[in-house]
C-alpha cells in the first residue's frame, strides 16, 4: 500500500495540535558544533535585525563570556533583569521566566538551551522554560550545541570522550520551527581558541584542550551538518506528505526496542531513536518483566525506570508487561502493535550460558517471521551490574540456610525409620522438602536443596549408613533420577509461584481500576464522585490525594466534600501551573520537583476540568512506569467522569432555562390577556359613569357599577394567585407545620368561600374523633379554598359538593367532589400545570390548581384529579402524618 494521501488520523492530530495551541510562539534554534562558533553573536544579531523590523525583542538571558563583540551587540537590546538565586553560598544568575511572561515581548532571546536551572526554580531545565514561553505565545531565539541533543549524546561521547550531562530531548528540538546552523571551519575555531576569544573555565581547561582537536571538531561538525540536513530532508518529505505529492513516503514503520535494567539499554534506546528518526517511524520501548526471584533489586529497578523515562523523553511510547516467555510475548506484542522492526541488544552473557539456555536473539529470529530484527551491540556498564548483584546475595543466604534446615529436618524424620521403610518412599519425603523450599525461597535455594537432599539421602539413609559409599551401583541411577526430579519440581514450583505473584500484582491493578470505574459510574453528583475518586485512588496508591476543580471564576479550588487544609500555599501555585499548561508537575517530574505532591491535569475529552494531586507514602512508587500508567488511567477516568457529571449538570441547567423561559412567556401572555380584560371593563364602565353625557338611567348605572365591582374582584383573585405562586416558587414561603384540627381548617375555608358556593349544598364527612394533622394552617386553607372555588365555578347552582377526609395508613386523604360536568379525559393530569385552563372562557389564570400542587408537594403529599363514577370531578390530596400528634393534660371537669 502506498501512502499517497495524508492519513485522516494525522490530519486530525494536526488540527488538534493547532487548536490546543492557537497562538504558539515560534522557536528558532541556533545550533553549533561546539562552544565558540559564535551562536550567541549570531542570535543577538538576528534579534537586532528583527528589532529593526519593529518586532518587540528582548534578551531574556545571554552568556557573552566576556567577548567584546558580543557584549557590544547586547548593548542595543532591552535586557530582562535576571533572577538571582542563592544556593549553597553561591549566587546564581538565572533566567526569570515569570518576569518574561509578565513583560510579554513578541520575541525573547534565551541563550544556552541545555542549561540546568538552579535548584528551586520552577523547571529543572531551561528548555522547559522555553517550552512554557512558546505555549504562552512568545517566540524564542535560543542556542545550543550538537552534543546537547539527547539522541546524539552517546555518539558525541564516543567521538570526544567527554560525557555531556546537560541534554535537550529530541522531541523538543524537533518542535523548532527553524534550526540555523552556525558553522565555523575547525581551523578558524582553533585559531580563535588560541587567540583567547573562547571562554574556558579553569577547571575544564584540560578536558577541553583534549576536546578541541581538529579530528574531534571535524567529526562534530559533520554530525551537526548531518543533523540539520536530515531535518531538512524530513521537512521536504513532510511537505510532500502534507500536499499528498510524490510517492517517496514509505509505508510507515514502527520500531520496537526491547529494554532491560542493564546499563547498556540506554544506548539501545538512543540508537533506536536515531534509527526511528531516519526512517521517519514511530517507536515503542518495551520492558518484559520475567517472574524472577523476588523481582528486580531496587537499584536495577531505578535504572530501568530511568531508561524507560529516557525513551519517553525521546518520543517513544513505553510499556511494561510481565510474561514468562520473553520471546513469545515480545513477538505477540510486536504483531499486535504493527511493529515492523524489533531492536534488541547483543547479549553480554558468557558464551556457554547462551549455548545452554538458548539465545534470545536466535529464538526471536526464529519466531519473528516477517518482522525485521536489529541487533545492536552493547558495551560498558558491567561494573554497575556487578555492584547490583551483591545486594541480591543478602537475602539468598537466608534462603540457603532455610533450605539446609528443611533437609536436616527431613533427614531427622526419616532416620529412626530407615530400616523399616523402602528407600524409594524416603526419597519421596525429600522431594516434599524440596517443594517446600521452592514454595518459599529463591530458585538457587531450591536447587541447593535438591543437591543437598540427594547427598543426605545417600549419606544417612542408603546402606551402608553414614557414608557416601553405596552397596549397590543401582543406587547411582536412583540418585540421578531423584536429583533430576527434585530439580524439575523445584524449578516448576518456583515458576508457578512467581507467575502467581505476577498475576496477583496485575490482578490488584485491574481490580483497583475496576473498582474505580464502578464507583465513578455510580456517582451522580460531583461531590460523591470526588469522594469516590479520592477514596479509590488513595487505596490504589497508598497516599493522600486531592482533587481541585476549576470553578466558575476560572480559579482552582478544592472539590466539594474535600478539605483545603492539606494543600500548602506553594503547592497551590503548582496546581495552577499544571492547570494552565496542561502538563504534569511536582514530585517525580522535571517541573517544580520540590513540590510536596505530584500534580496531574484532569484532561477530559473537551477540556481540563481540574487538577489531581497525589502524595504517595513512598516517593519511589511514582517512578515505577506500571504505577504511572495506572495513575494516568485513573486520572483520565476521573476526568472523564467529572466531565460527564458537569455536562449533565449543564444540560439540566439549560433545560431549566428553557422551562423558565416557557413559563415566563406563558405568564406574559396570561398577564396581558387576563389582566387587560377586567381592566378594559372597569375603565369603560367608569368612563361612561363619569361622562356627563353618559347614561342617566339608574338601572344602567347600577349595572355598570356592578360590572366594575365584579371585575375588580376578579382582578384581585388573579393578582392573589400570581403572588401566591411567585412566593411559593421563590421559596419565600416557609412551611410552618403545626398540628391543626382538620375540621377547623375546612370550616375556615368554607366560611371564606360561602359567597361563591352560594346555594350548593355541602356535605362534610370527617372521622368521629378529632383529626389533628401536621400542616401549615393558612396554606392548606388556601388549597381548600382553591378547590372549593373551582368546584363552585364549574358546577351549576344547587349541585351538591362533598367534602370528605379520612386517615389511611400514615396519611390523611382529603377529597372535594362535585357533580358538575367532570374533566375531559386528557385534562385529568394537565389541570395542575401552570397557566393551564380547561376552557378559555372561565376567567381564571390557570394557577389555582398549580398553587394547590405546590403547597401539597411542600407538605410531602400528593394531589390528583379523577372523574367520579356517576358524573362530576373529584380532587384528592394527601398529607403525610409526620410524628405523633400532641396531647393536652386532662383537666378535672
Amino acid at each position, binding site marked *: 500500500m502506498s501512502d499517497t494521501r495524508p492519513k485522516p488520523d494525522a490530519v486530525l492530530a494536526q488540527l488538534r495540535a493547532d487548536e490546543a495551541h492557537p497562538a504558539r510562539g515560534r522557536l528558532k534554534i541556533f545550533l553549533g558544533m561546539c562552544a565558540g562558533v559564535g551562536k550567541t553573536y549570531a542570535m543577538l544579531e538576528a534579534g537586532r535585525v528583527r528589532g529593526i523590523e519593529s518586532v518587540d525583542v528582548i534578551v531574556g538571558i545571554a552568556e557573552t563570556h566576556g567577548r567584546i563583540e558580543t557584549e557590544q551587540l547586547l548593548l542595543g537590546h532591552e535586557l530582562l533583569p535576571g533572577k538571582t538565586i542563592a544556593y549553597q553560598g553561591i549566587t546564581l544568575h538565572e533566567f526569570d521566566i515569570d518576569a518574561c511572561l509578565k513583560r510579554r515581548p513578541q520575541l525573547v532571546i534565551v541563550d544556552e538551551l541545555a542549561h540546568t536551572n538552579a535548584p528551586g526554580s520552577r523547571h529543572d531545565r531551561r528548555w522547559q522554560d522555553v517550552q512554557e514561553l512558546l505555549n504562552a505565545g512568545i517566540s524564542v531565539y535560543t542556542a545550543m550545541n550538537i552534543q546537547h541533543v539527547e539522541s546524539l549524546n552517546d555518539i558525541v561521547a564516543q567521538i570526544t570522550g567527554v560525557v555531556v550531562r546537560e541534554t535537550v530531548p529530541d522531541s523538543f528540538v524537533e518542535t523548532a520551527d527553524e534550526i540555523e546552523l552556525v558553522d565555523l571551519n575547525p581551523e578558524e575555531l582553533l585559531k580563535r581558541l588560541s587567540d583567547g576569544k573562547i571562554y574556558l573555565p579553569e577547571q575544564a581547561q584540560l578536558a577541553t584542550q583534549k576536546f578541541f582537536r581538529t579530528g574531534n571538531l571535524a567529526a562534530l561538525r559533520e554530525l551537526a551538518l548531518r543533523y540539520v540536513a536530515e531535518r531538512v530532508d524530513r521537512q521536504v518529505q513532510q511537505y510532500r506528505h502534507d500536499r499528498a505529492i510524490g510517492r517517496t513516503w514509505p509505508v510507515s514503520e514502527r520500531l520496537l526496542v526491547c529494554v532491560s535494567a542493564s546499563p547498556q539499554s540506554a544506548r539501545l534506546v538512543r540508537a533506536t531513536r536515531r534509527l526511528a528518526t531516519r526512517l521517519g517511524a514511530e517507536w515503542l520501548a518495551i520492558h518484559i518483566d520475567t517472574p524472577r526471584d523476588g523481582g528486580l533489586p531496587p537499584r536495577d529497578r531505578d535504572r530501568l525506570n530511568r531508561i524507560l523515562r529516557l525513551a519517553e523523553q525521546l518520543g517513544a511510547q513505553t510499556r511494561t508487561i510481565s510474561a514468562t516467555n520473553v520471546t513469545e510475548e515480545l513477538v505477540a506484542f510486536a504483531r499486535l502493535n504493527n511493529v515492523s522492526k524489533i531492536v534488541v541488544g547483543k547479549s553480554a552473557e558468557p558464551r556457554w550460558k547462551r549455548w545452554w539456555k538458548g539465545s534470545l536473539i536466535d529464538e526471536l529470529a526464529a519466531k519473528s517471521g516477517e518482522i525485521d530484527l536489529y541487533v545492536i551491540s552493547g558495551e560498558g556498564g558491567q561494573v554497575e551490574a556487578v555492584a547490583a548483584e551483591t545486594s541480591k546475595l543478602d537475602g539468598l543466604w537466608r534462603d540457603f540456610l532455610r533450605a539446609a534446615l528443611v533437609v536436616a529436618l527431613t533427614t531427622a524424620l526419616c532416620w529412626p525409620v530407615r530400616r523399616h521403610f523402602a528407600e524409594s518412599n524416603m526419597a519421596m519425603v525429600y522431594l516434599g522438602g524440596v517443594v517446600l523450599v521452592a514454595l518459599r525461597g529463591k530458585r538457587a535455594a531450591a536447587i541447593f536443596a535438591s543437591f543437598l537432599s540427594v547427598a543426605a539421602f545417600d549419606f544417612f539413609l542408603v546402606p551402608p549408613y553414614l557414608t557416601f559409599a553405596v552397596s549397590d551401583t543401582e543406587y547411582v541411577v536412583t540418585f540421578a533420577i531423584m536429583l533430576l526430579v527434585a530439580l524439575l519440581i523445584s524449578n516448576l514450583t518456583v515458576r508457578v509461584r512467581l507467575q502467581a505473584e505476577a498475576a496477583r500484582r496485575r490482578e490488584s491493578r485491574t481490580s483497583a481500576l475496576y473498582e474505580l470505574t464502578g464507583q465513578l459510574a455510580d456517582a451522580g453528583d460531583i461531590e460523591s464522585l470526588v469522594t469516590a475518586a479520592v477514596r479509590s485512588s488513595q487505596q490504589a496508591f497508598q497516599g493522600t490525594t486531592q482533587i481541585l476543580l476549576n470553578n466558575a471564576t476560572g480559579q482552582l479550588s478544592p472539590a466539594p466534600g474535600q478539605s483545603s487544609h492539606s494543600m500548602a500555599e506553594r503547592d497551590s501555585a503548582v496546581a495552577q501551573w499544571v492547570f494552565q499548561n496542561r502538563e504534569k508537575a511536582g514530585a517525580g517530574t522535571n517541573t517544580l520537583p520540590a513540590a510536596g505532591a505530584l500534580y496531574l491535569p484532569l484532561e477530559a475529552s473537551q477540556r481540563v476540568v481540574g487538577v489531581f494531586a497525589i502524595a504517595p507514602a513512598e516517593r519511589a512508587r511514582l517512578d515505577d512506569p506500571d504505577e504511572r500508567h495506572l495513575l494516568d488511567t485513573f486520572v483520565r477516568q476521573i476526568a472523564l467522569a467529572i466531565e460527564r457529571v458537569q455536562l449533565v449538570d449543564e444540560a439540566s441547567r439549560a433545560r431549566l432555562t428553557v422551562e423558565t423561559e416557557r413559563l415566563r412567556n406563558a405568564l406574559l401572555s396570561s398577564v396581558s390577556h387576563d389582566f387587560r380584560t377586567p381592566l378594559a371593563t372597569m375603565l369603560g364602565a367608569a368612563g361612561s359613569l363619569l361622562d356627563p353625557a353618559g347614561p342617566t338611567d339608574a338601572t344602567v348605572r347600577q349595572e355598570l357599577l356592578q360590572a366594575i365591582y365584579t371585575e375588580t374582584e376578579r382582578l384581585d383573585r388573579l393578582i392573589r394567585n400570581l403572588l401566591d405562586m411567585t412566593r411559593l416558587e421563590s421559596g419565600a414561603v416557609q412551611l410552618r407545620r*403545626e*398540628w391543626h384540627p382538620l*375540621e377547623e381548617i375546612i370550616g375556615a375555608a*368554607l*366560611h371564606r368561600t360561602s359567597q361563591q358556593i352560594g346555594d350548593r349544598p355541602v356535605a*362534610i364527612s370527617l372521622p368521629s374523633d378529632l383529626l389533628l394533622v401536621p400542616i401549615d394552617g393558612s396554606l392548606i386553607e388556601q388549597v381548600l379554598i382553591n378547590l372549593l372555588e373551582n368546584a363552585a365555578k364549574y358546577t351549576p347552582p344547587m349541585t351538591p359538593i362533598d367534602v370528605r377526609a379520612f386517615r389511611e395508613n400514615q396519611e390523611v386523604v382529603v377529597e372535594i367532589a362535585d357533580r358538575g360536568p367532570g374533566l375531559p379525559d386528557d385534562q385529568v393530569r394537565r389541570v395542575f400545570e401552570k397557566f393551564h385552563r380547561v376552557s378559555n372562557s372561565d376567567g381564571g389564570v390557570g394557577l389555582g390548581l398549580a398553587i394547590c400542587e405546590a403547597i401539597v408537594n411542600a407538605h410531602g403529599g400528593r394531589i390528583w384529579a379523577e372523574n367520579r363514577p356517576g358524573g362530576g370531578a373529584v380532587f384528592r390530596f394527601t398529607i403525610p402524618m409526620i410524628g405523633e400528634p400532641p396531647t393536652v393534660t386532662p*383537666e378535672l371537669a
Partner: protein
Amino acid sequence: MADPEVTILCIEDEVQIRRFLRASLATQGYRLIEAATGRQGIAEAAARTPDIIILDLGLPDVDGLDITQELRALTRRPIIVLSARGQERDKVDALDAGADDYLTKPFSVAELLARIRVALRHADRSLAGAESESITIGELTIDHARHRVTVGDSEIRLTPTEFKLLFELARHAGRVLTPQHLLREVWGPAYLDRSHYLRIYMARIRGKIEKDPARPRYLLTEPGVGYRLADT
C-alpha cells in the same frame, strides 16, 4: 346612622384609599381626620384625641409595629390595622402589640363599617367599666356569674378551662383574638408556646356548642391570625 360626634383618625399614605374612606365614612356621619404619614398620625392622635384609629401597616416612614405600640401608649381608643394579604405575621404582631382588629386589603366598605361598630361598642363597654354578666349571641348565652352556657334551651357542660376560653372570646365578641392573647389569658404565660392546647380546646368547645362543627356558627377561625366569636 352612627353617632355624629365620633371622630375617626385615618393614617394612610395612599391618596386614593383616603379619598374612598372619606367618601364612605362621611356618608355614615363619621368625622374624619386624615394623616398621610406615621409621624403626622401620631401628632394628630395626641392633639385631636380621636375615638377610633384606622392605621395602615405599610406606611413609608415608620414601621407598622412601632407605630402601633406608640399609638397604644398614647391612647386606649380602638385601633384597626389595614394590611395586605399574606402578611399574617404582621397582623398578629400588631394585634399582640395592642391593635384591636384588622382588615385585609382589599376590603369592602361594609366590612370596615362592621369592624368600626364592633370596636366602638367594646370601647364604650370597657370605658363604662362594667362588664356585662351575661352575653347572648344568637342562641348562645354565656352567663359569667353562674358559669352557665346554654344553646337555645339546652345547657352545655363545659370544663372550667373551656368556659374560661369561651368567656374570654365572648368578652371580645366580634374581635379577633390572637393565640398569644388567649393562651396568656386562659392558661397563663407559661403556656405561650403550646398553641395546640388552644386548637384542641377550640375543637372541643365547637363539638359542644356548634350544630355542625365543620361549619361553625359562633367560633370562627382566621387561619394564621387567631379566633373570633361571632357577635351576632
